[in-house]
């Protein structure tokens, strides 16, 4: 056999197309090794190194721009959509790392593994956002999941942490199986795992009615729906979110969701035109179920962390509303909402973890009584994030919901929009209930003071608050970026 010619040009371009991921993985490996030789009291350096790595990666994403760079024979592509989600995921990772400076010391999670696991998981998410081949999506999903399972169980001595990790791991393994089986069935009928080729074949209508393809697409949807916790694949969410260290919960709720939605958007926006109206109906039902079950369950929670876990289920439902029609307007609204959601949710978890102090019982809603007037800055910040989660102007959460529901109305899904708005109204009850506790309930006799945040922690909270406020008033530039990102996919 003749030697296989290696195209140096293509190899360089392929390497360049995954430059942000390479930076994150290299940082993770570096942190892992510095951890071995670093004495116990200097572990804070690791956090700093991780933040620098993530910042470099963000810089690489920005400098690469929205230009389309395809790599590894079409297994990954750096395009507008990939860049948008990389920015969301890396921002979530950076906020988590900034908060880790204080949190890890309180909770005794100050170990080098924490940072490298977080970074490795981030790299998996970025690959998932960029994968144009279903196999890349699957590999990204596994790379993101395995470190997250470990991180959920990072509090080895807390029963709830281990319980959450085990539940998440077992159900997650099943979901991966569903996804892989779906990919196998799709490959069996079409002979390809590349998403653009699948989309082209779907438009030829030869594939759309094939029962084996429909089964494959359904299984694929189940696998991804599990990761974004759509009802009825949400059972693991409350336990895993409540048991995980709060910092990990904040990261999971924002970044894992963004990565799985990235893969879902890439698949749905390209494939949906050939699969309407059947797929649209399924997504409609999933969106309505997710919003309603998430919000109604959150109503009854007295544990703030669990309440936020159910609220994150509901938010996955809102984001899905934008994808039902599979057009640019809805996709753009979903992207914008995912970005806003990452900042407001991590911000809310950040304030809550300062106030709660202790895992498990610290998150009882009674502990939040009287916080508002005794600690005005914390109270105001948490109120801002909750108001944004509820979707009240002038916050970014309102703008996000407005675009999601108006896209639904414009595409003729008026019933869906009405159900969404009603759900939003229900959600305001439990968000404002916490605000009422903070401002209108007297503090308990031995109410403990919140922890004083470190500088980096305060920086993360301020950045989140700034994004929520600025995007609430001036959303145009980010909305346009989201629109360009979706359009880059359809070109």
């Amino acid at each position: 056999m003749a030697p296989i010619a290696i195209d140096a040009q293509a190899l360089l371009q392929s390497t360049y197309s995954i430059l942000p991921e390479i930076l994150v993985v290299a940082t993770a490996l570096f942190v892992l090794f510095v951890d071995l030789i670093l004495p116990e009291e200097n572990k804070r350096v690791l956090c700093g190194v991780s933040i620098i790595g993530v910042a470099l990666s963000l810089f690489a994403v920005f400098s690469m721009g929205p230009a389309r760079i395809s790599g590894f024979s079409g297994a990954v592509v750096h395009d507008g959509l990939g860049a948008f989600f990389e920015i969301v995921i890396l921002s979530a990772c950076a906020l988590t790392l900034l908060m880790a400076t204080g949190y890890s010391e309180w909770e005794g999670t100050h170990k080098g593994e924490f940072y490298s696991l977080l970074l490795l998981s981030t790299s998996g998410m970025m690959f998932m956002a960029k994968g144009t081949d279903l196999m890349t999506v699957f590999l990204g999903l596994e790379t993101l999941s395995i470190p997250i399972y470990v991180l959920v169980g990072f509090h080895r001595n807390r029963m709830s942490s281990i319980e959450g990790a085990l539940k998440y791991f077992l159900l997650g393994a099943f979901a991966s199986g569903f996804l892989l089986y779906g990919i196998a069935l799709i490959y069996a009928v079409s002979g390809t795992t590349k998403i653009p080729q699948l989309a082209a074949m779907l438009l030829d209508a030869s594939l759309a009615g094939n029962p084996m393809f429909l089964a494959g697409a359904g299984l694929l949807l189940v696998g991804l729906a599990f990761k974004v916790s759509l009802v009825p694949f949400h059972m693991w969410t409350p336990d895993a979110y409540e048991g995980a260290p709060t910092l990990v919960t904040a990261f999971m709720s924002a970044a894992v969701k963004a990565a799985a939605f990235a893969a879902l958007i890439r698949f749905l926006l390209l494939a949906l035109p050939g699969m309407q109206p059947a797929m649209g109906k399924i997504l409609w039902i999933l969106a309505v179920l997710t919003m309603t079950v998430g919000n109604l369950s959150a109503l009854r929670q007295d544990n703030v962390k669990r309440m936020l876990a159910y609220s994150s289920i509901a938010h996955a439902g809102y984001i899905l509303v934008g994808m039902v029609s599979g057009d640019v307007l809805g996709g753009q609204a979903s992207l914008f909402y995912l970005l806003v959601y990452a900042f407001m949710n991590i911000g809310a978890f950040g304030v809550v973890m300062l106030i709660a102090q202790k895992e498990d019982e610290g998150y009882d809603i009674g502990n939040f009584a009287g916080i508002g007037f005794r600690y005005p800055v914390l109270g105001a910040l948490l109120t801002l994030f909750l108001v944004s989660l509820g979707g009240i102007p002038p916050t970014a959460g309102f703008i996000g919901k407005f675009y999601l529901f108006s896209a639904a109305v414009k595409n003729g899904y008026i019933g869906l929009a009405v159900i969404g708005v009603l759900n939003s109204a229900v959600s305001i009850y439990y968000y404002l209930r916490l605000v009422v506790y903070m401002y209108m309930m007297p503090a308990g006799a031995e109410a403990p003071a919140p922890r004083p945040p470190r500088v980096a922690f305060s920086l993360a909270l301020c950045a989140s608050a700034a994004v929520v406020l600025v995007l609430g008033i001036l959303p145009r530039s980010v909305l346009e970026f989201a629109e360009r990102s979706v359009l880059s996919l359809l070109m």
Partner: protein
Amino acid sequence: MANFLSTIQFSDPYFSVLLLLAIALVMSVGFVFLSQALGPKRYDRVKYSVYECGVDPFTPASVRVSVKFYLVALLFILFDLEAAFLYPWAVLYRELGLFGLVEMGIFILILLAGLIYAWKKGALEWQ
């Protein structure tokens, strides 16, 4: 019935898969019921004892296994998989040339990093 049979396309490439599935199902379920129906049933002390190559069991079967074994097993899987990846490279060694050598070098270096990490963390010590 004849009408139904005529709709089956025997030339379909997936027909053999379907056939295999049907035969596998019939055989596996069939054997369970056959052994239940035809097997002689003699229950005595020996029959109920734990099977350990015909020898009387020394200890109860449900003992707790030390976590150290899991660690070794995990490391074994890791480096065993590495070896599995080396075979295809070895087969195509000449064709891949320098590119393959460099690529596999990077791959093995990253795995070596894992080995050093496990070593430094004391995963290789049996204590």
